[in-house]
């Protein structure tokens, strides 16, 4: 089984989601990667440490990367014959898998949280209904199978050291699609650890009452615990905090050692993004809030009373 991973980078390092997929793929067969960007030389050694034998590198210039990635892969599959191509369920990963599915006329399985390979059979596990139901789906069509995997579905571990040899691929002609050009990249400042990588995540929901309460309640507690602050979609949509803080189905999946939910009701779409945390603490004034059904410690109380006292005590 030859598995390709659509590698993405943050700066000069592969993203954690990329390494998670490589780690899993290594269990199932030989692993090669496709990388779109100008810094393959910086990325390839790290991929090699995780067992990637070859890195097909394509430079997209200013074009939106997924568009070039899909065109490049479409040009390579016949000669290289991968059996399965894994993409992260990320912004660029989704662009790439979507366009490739049309080019190859293949179905796609998305939002994967598990993968199994038995002989030639490739099965992807998905989670629906807020993660309460697991659905296994098998590819029936010709290779390559295309799947998008949610970050945090597997644990990244170095191993299976391989060459990480770079194979440069000419930038393909993507037709009118390549008119999508990135003019500027804006990085929003962030303090403390990344949300997906923090040991502790403190999230706030509509129950914190107002935008101006986020900093003194949520950010402050996160800072004291050396964690990252997150949010429910309700307060992201309300414009209280940026989207990058959203936890849940349409936001990030987090699996910290401790997740603290302040004034969050526990909608299925929120829980699917945090239910895998080792420990969960919830503070909510409604004793019936669904979040308590997953909390190791649940405090039925007012965040404006409990949290300031807690901050004081720490």
């Amino acid at each position: 089984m030859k598995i390709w991973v659509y590698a993405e980078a943050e700066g000069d390092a592969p993203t954690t989601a990329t390494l998670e997929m490589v780690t899993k793929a290594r269990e199932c067969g030989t692993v090669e990667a496709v990388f779109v960007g100008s810094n393959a030389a910086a990325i390839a050694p790290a991929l090699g440490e995780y067992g990637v034998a070859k890195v097909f590198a394509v430079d997209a210039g200013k074009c939106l990367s997924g568009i070039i990635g899909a065109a490049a892969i479409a040009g390579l599959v016949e000669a290289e014959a991968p059996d399965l191509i894994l993409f992260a369920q990320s912004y660029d990963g989704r662009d790439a898998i979507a366009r490739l599915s049309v080019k190859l006329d293949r179905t796609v399985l998305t939002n994967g949280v598990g993968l199994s390979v038995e002989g030639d059979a490739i099965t992807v596990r998905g989670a629906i209904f807020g993660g309460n139901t697991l659905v296994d789906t098998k590819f029936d069509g010709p290779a390559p199978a295309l799947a998008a995997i949610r970050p945090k579905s597997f644990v990244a571990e170095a191993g299976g050291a391989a060459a990480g040899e770079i194979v440069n691929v000419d930038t393909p002609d993507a037709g009118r699609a390549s008119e999508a050009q990135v003019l500027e990249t804006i990085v929003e400042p962030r303090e403390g650890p990344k949300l997906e990588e923090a040991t502790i995540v403190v999230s706030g929901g509509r129950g914190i009452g107002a935008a101006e309460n986020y900093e003194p309640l949520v950010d402050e507690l996160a800072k004291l615990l050396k964690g990252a602050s997150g949010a429910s979609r309700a307060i992201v949509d309300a414009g209280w905090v940026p989207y990058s803080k959203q936890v849940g189905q349409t936001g990030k999946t987090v699996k910290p050692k401790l997740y603290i939910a302040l004034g969050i009701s526990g909608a299925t779409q929120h829980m699917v993004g945090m239910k895998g945390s080792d420990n969960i603490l919830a503070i909510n004034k409604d004793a019936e809030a669904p979040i308590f059904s997953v909390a190791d410690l649940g405090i039925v109380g007012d965040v404006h009373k409990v949290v300031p006292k807690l901050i004081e005590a720490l």
Partner: protein
Amino acid sequence: MNVVVCVKQIPDPAVPGQLDTDHTLKREGKLILDESDSYGVEMALQLVDKAGGGEVTLISMAPNAEVSGLRTALAMGAAKAILVSDDVLSGADSLTTAKVLAKCVERAGDIDLVLTATESTDGYTGTIPAQVAELLGWPSLTFAKEVHLEEGTAKIQRQTEAGYDVVQANLPAVVSVTAGVVEPRYPSFKGIMAAKSKPVDQVSTSDLGLDAAALAANQSITSVTAAPAREAGEKLEDDGTAFEKVVEFLDGLKVI
């Protein structure tokens, strides 16, 4: 400026979802406009308004000739709709859906822009926007949290992990918009009345020139199981001292 908006009609998300015996999502009862698509409808109305002319056409694929969600979007101000309802589409995968929607865009005529949501509430594959663009041979600008049109181009702020990118493409193009990009209007009473007589062009896959045999999805569900449930732990009422209990809990986890 003629804009097409893809609008999905879905079962009420407040009602717990169920799977049918064939493992597809149950889609019985009345369908409603996916809230995620209300942002696209609002954005389209504003863009057409700003351009000073043109109209908004809705396209939707839904079972049982369902129109209630479309009527909501028509009541917001869209001019007309194309609805594809065809039994062969039951359980369609995202690529099949995209093939149908791309044909609808062609049927809609001379179009400058196609808007979609970044992902649907009930399917959330998030692949359909770029699939439709690829089928049409157009550029796609995905995950837009701001959209501006100027001189035959679309310029968006594209959501990224670290912030956003400013991305531009020539029209016609497909743009997918995130929730919250604009504040969707509530349909007025006048709008609701007007929507009742707005044209809905109902078509089948053969009307669109699609071959049913080419629409088969190459995937099959092998098992459906319940995920292991997480046990609830201790729950206590705050009497003014609950913070002490929290400190104890944090201490036990060795995080302080």
